[in-house]
């Protein structure tokens, strides 16, 4: 049995095990008669180490034996492999975001007043971590509550150049009427959005439907709204 063969068996064993294998265990693979000496095995392991020298894997000796591991410097490359998909945002979060956008600077208490329910710390934290809202000051009332405003990242994400590009509230109020202007798919009842928000599959279908329907027609959220929506400035009250 030549070294190449020994090396092949060792490599297969280490990769099959996916955990450290001791020299004894490696040696036991070859049976008794005609088994390579421990030195021969060590030498084959050394060659294997050299084989991996400029590769993304390495042969490492650890307490309980030898293992083949992914080199540390490969970590960044492999990140997409472990990518986890976060669950979709709740309706409460979207409502909070919308209120911050339209009513900034606004405190949590004021959001709660409009929504009629408490806004969880979690929602505020999620929106801050996402970089869409930030604390812009504190209101001078007891407790000095933080006031939130939207960020440039928020505008970038939604393809807006300025906050003003958001449709005025009067039009949000009458979203159905706004739909044609926004190139919203006509067939999509409003209910679908509100109720279906948690359903990722549905949302994907919607998106697919839009792409299909939109032969050259830009979808509202992908195009700077300024070009798409010929909105009038809201009348002052």
């Amino acid at each position, binding site marked *: 049995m030549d070294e190449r063969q020994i090396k092949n068996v060792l490599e297969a064993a280490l*990769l*099959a095990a*996916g955990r450290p294998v001791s020299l004894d265990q490696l040696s036991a693979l070859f049976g008794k008669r005609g088994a390579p000496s421990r030195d021969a095995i060590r030498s084959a392991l050394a060659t294997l180490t050299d084989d991996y020298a400029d590769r993304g*894997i390495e042969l490492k000796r650890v307490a309980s034996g030898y*293992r*083949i*591991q*992914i080199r*540390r410097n490969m*970590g*960044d490359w*492999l*990140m*997409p492999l*472990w*990518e*986890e*998909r*976060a669950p*979709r*945002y709740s*309706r409460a979060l*979207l*409502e909070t*975001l*919308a209120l911050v956008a*339209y*009513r*900034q600077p606004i405190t949590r208490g004021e959001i709660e007043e*409009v*929504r*009629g329910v408490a806004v969880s710390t979690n929602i505020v934290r999620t929106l801050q971590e*996402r970089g869409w809202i*930030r*604390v812009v*000051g*504190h*209101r*001078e009332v007891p407790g000095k509550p933080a*006031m939130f405003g*939207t960020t440039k990242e928020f505008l970038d994400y939604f393809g807006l150049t*300025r*906050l*003003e590009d958001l449709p*005025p*509230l009067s039009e*949000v*109020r009458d*979203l159905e009427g706004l739909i044609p202007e*926004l190139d*919203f798919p006509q067939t999509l009842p*409003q209910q679908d*959005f*509100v109720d279906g*928000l948690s359903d990722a599959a549905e*949302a994907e279908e919607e998106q697919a439907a839009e792409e299909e329907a939109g032969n050259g027609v830009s979808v509202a959220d992908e195009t700077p*709204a300024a070009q798409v929506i010929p909105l009038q400035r*809201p009348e*002052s*009250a």
Partner: protein
Amino acid sequence: MESTDKPHLTLVPGMPPPITEGPGAPAQGEMPFALVEGEPVTELPRDLYIPPHALKVFLEAFEGPLDLLLYLIKRQNLNILDIPMAEISLQYTKYIELMQDMQFELAGEYLVMAATLTEIKSRMLLPRSEEAEEDEEDPRAELVRRLQEYERFKQAAEGINELERMDRDVHQASGEVVERKVVTKLPDVTLKEMLFALKAVLDRADMYAHLHVQREPLSVRERMSEILTRMQDKQFAEFSDLFSAEEGRMGVAVTFLAILELLKEALIDIVQSEAFGPIHVRAATASTQEPINQPS
């Protein structure tokens, strides 16, 4: 079991794998299909007689009446397309009787098959007119079709069993990942979703009117946030610094409205230390509330 005309029996489920080493091991290619009292049975009985102690194991090796029939046909090297019905149904019935004598838990399907065989046999024995013969198909046809169909999938199952199977024939190769950098892909939100959320909340609260949300254009709201942010960075800002000539008349107006609104909401203070001196803007603090010169 090398020639194909021998029965296609594989190992009885639950039996140990074929012994390939040690004394008394059967020669290569001779696989026991069952172990009876520890002794491997490498050959199927040539005729109906099966040692009683082996019968149960033997019969359990069949996957049903079709399987048993296929075995009977093949054992006698008969052409499946030309089954001698009388002989086959006799043999089949004898096995059924054996099973019943053994109090072998007999599936109803075996009895149904026995009845079918008897029926075919009787139909073949009955004399038929030429006309009838033309109209009627061979009474064996349906049985043959079923036997053939079953045989195909029996072979297909063997084919699948021989496929290179994970954990049995091949194994996943893996290297250890010492440190995993897990990233979370954040959910996507569309503008529409947000707008509909807003509409929902407005509909629900119906506080549209008294919120006076549309009192100021959004640009003023945005500017309010901007000014407040500047106040956070530095305690003071010079009033004139808040305006940018490049924004034009409209921009100046927006900034001015934003400052007024902030002032009204008591979010900023405006201070002027001396007449005609520079006006400073600062974040409002309850303790440092001072009389201010409010530009009008």
